[in-house]
């Protein structure tokens, strides 16, 4: 489905995700977890092409970034905009309707069906400003349903909402998985990740562990991620990991050892999938 090969991405020379290699199979449901500032959102943006890659590449099998559906965090959306709930869901038809084509009755029915699925059909004509955060999150899920994508990326879909809404929306993830879609979601709640996501990817700028969520979310891995997060500094040395090995020896003194000493001598694809690295 999607394979990340040694991907780095970030802002202004500072990589927020650093040399990530991972493969996501069709029908997989992966929780992306890790400390704040660990690059979880950046990873999703990089996959969607919203964040240019600093190095590495992505292999798409059987689909492209254009077949992916992306749910941004709620605060990225202007909730004061005088639009109806149905308008927001209809935005999900963009791939088929584009700028100029009219929405067909079938498309409108799909939008209404999606709203029914998330329990929001009574709100179709309401202005979006009148919804609560949880209700609006349901609407965003309805839009993802309408997008009907092979790959689904959700950025903290459950962060702002109550348990009841989470319980209502979780079966959707299960259904998407059964339909063979690939789902990546950023989660803060580790319990939720372990209970509902078969796979997890622990990210602290570096990939700490990737594999079955039970293995990945072990205390040992979480501690390592936390330690790494605490070591982040404002001024970072240049990363030479992409360069030929002899360069590493040349400026060995300028290297930040906490980040790099365990990587020396391993060029390229050195991350394995079950989190047993290092």
């Amino acid at each position, binding site marked *: 489905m999607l394979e990340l090969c040694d991907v780095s991405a970030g802002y202004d020379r500072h990589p927020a995700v650093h040399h990530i290699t991972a493969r996501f199979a069709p029908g997989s449901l992966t929780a992306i977890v890790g400390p704040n500032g660990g690059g979880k959102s950046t990873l999703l943006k990089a996959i969607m092409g919203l964040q240019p890659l600093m190095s590495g590449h992505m292999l798409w099998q059987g689909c492209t*970034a254009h077949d*992916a559906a992306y749910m*941004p965090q709620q605060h990225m*959306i202007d909730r004061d*905009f*005088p639009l*109806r709930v149905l308008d927001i869901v209809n*935005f999900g038809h963009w791939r088929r*309707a584009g700028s100029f084509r009219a929405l067909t009755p079938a498309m409108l029915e799909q939008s209404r069906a999606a709203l029914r699925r998330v329990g929001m059909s009574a709100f179709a004509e309401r202005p979006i400003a009148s919804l609560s955060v949880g209700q609006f999150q349901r609407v965003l899920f309805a839009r993802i349903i309408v997008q009907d994508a092979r790959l689904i990326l959700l950025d903290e879909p459950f962060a702002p909402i109550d348990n009841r809404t989470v319980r209502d929306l979780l079966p959707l993830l299960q259904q998407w998985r059964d339909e063979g879609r690939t789902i990546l979601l950023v989660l803060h709640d580790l319990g939720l990740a372990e209970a509902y996501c078969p796979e997890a990817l622990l990210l602290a700028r570096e990939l700490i562990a990737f594999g079955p969520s039970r293995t990945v979310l072990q205390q040992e891995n979480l501690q390592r991620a936390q330690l790494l997060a605490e070591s982040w500094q404002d001024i970072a040395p240049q990363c030479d990991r992409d360069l030929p090995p002899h360069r590493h020896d040349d400026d060995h003194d300028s290297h930040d050892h906490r980040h790099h000493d365990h990587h020396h001598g391993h060029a390229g694809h050195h991350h394995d999938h079950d989190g047993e690295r290092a």
Partner: protein
Amino acid sequence: MSLYETCIAPFAEYAFMRRALVAVCTIACGSAPLGVLLVLRRMSLMADAMSHAIMPGIALVFVFAGFSLPLMSLGGFVAGLVVAVLAGLVTRATDLREDASFATFYLIALAFGVLLVSLHGTTVDLLHLLFGSLLAVDNASLMLMASIAAGTLLTLAAFYRPLLMAASDPVFFASLGGKVMRYQLLYLLLTTLNLVAGFQALGTLMTVGMMIIPAVASRFWVQHLDAMLPLTMAIGLVSGITGLLLSYHKAVASGPAIILVAGIIYLMSLTFGRYGSLRARYWPRRHLTH
């Protein structure tokens, strides 16, 4: 004075009033929907700044070629785009934030424009450029206004869906492969064109009022965009026509009269409007059962 004498006779008797009427209606129709989108995108100050930016272009043409409307419009358009591009480049190349970069450039442009006119023209010329001379609009400039208003409406209608998506949910729109920057540029282009269209009638500084004030006022009455667009246009038309009659009967400058009428409608909306107004906040109606 009868209703006929007040409202109809000035237009029936004088050709210049009829032309002025067409001019304000054209400006109201073109500016209203653009203004709504600018306000929703939080670009109203950008539009205000842009109205300063077209000034030196108009002034330069005025100094070297005299009071030639087509040339002055072209000069204003070019100046607006040059300043917008310069401000954009500075934002990208330095640490200066976009709003600060725009503000500085537009202020410099306005100062330069006013200085040019005051060096080479009279105070009357300067007043005309800044605040317009609605009663002196000729057929050629009516044609220009009508073309720009029609072009604006057609463009907004054609790109309505992506414009809405880029404005309300830019990250999602970009994730679909949409180019948010392209629509930002479209807004800049349309704003500049409409300011240029309105400057002869209302002046560079007053035209932006027709763009922004009706849009802000209508927000207090309706909650949906499809109602907001016609209401904004109606507020623009009412302010334009009322202001024009006021300036005729009381012999005051037409541009400020029109903007002040729009301002009064805005203040009333702010006070008595249905949503988010002072009344809704401090004297709410009884709540509903659900």
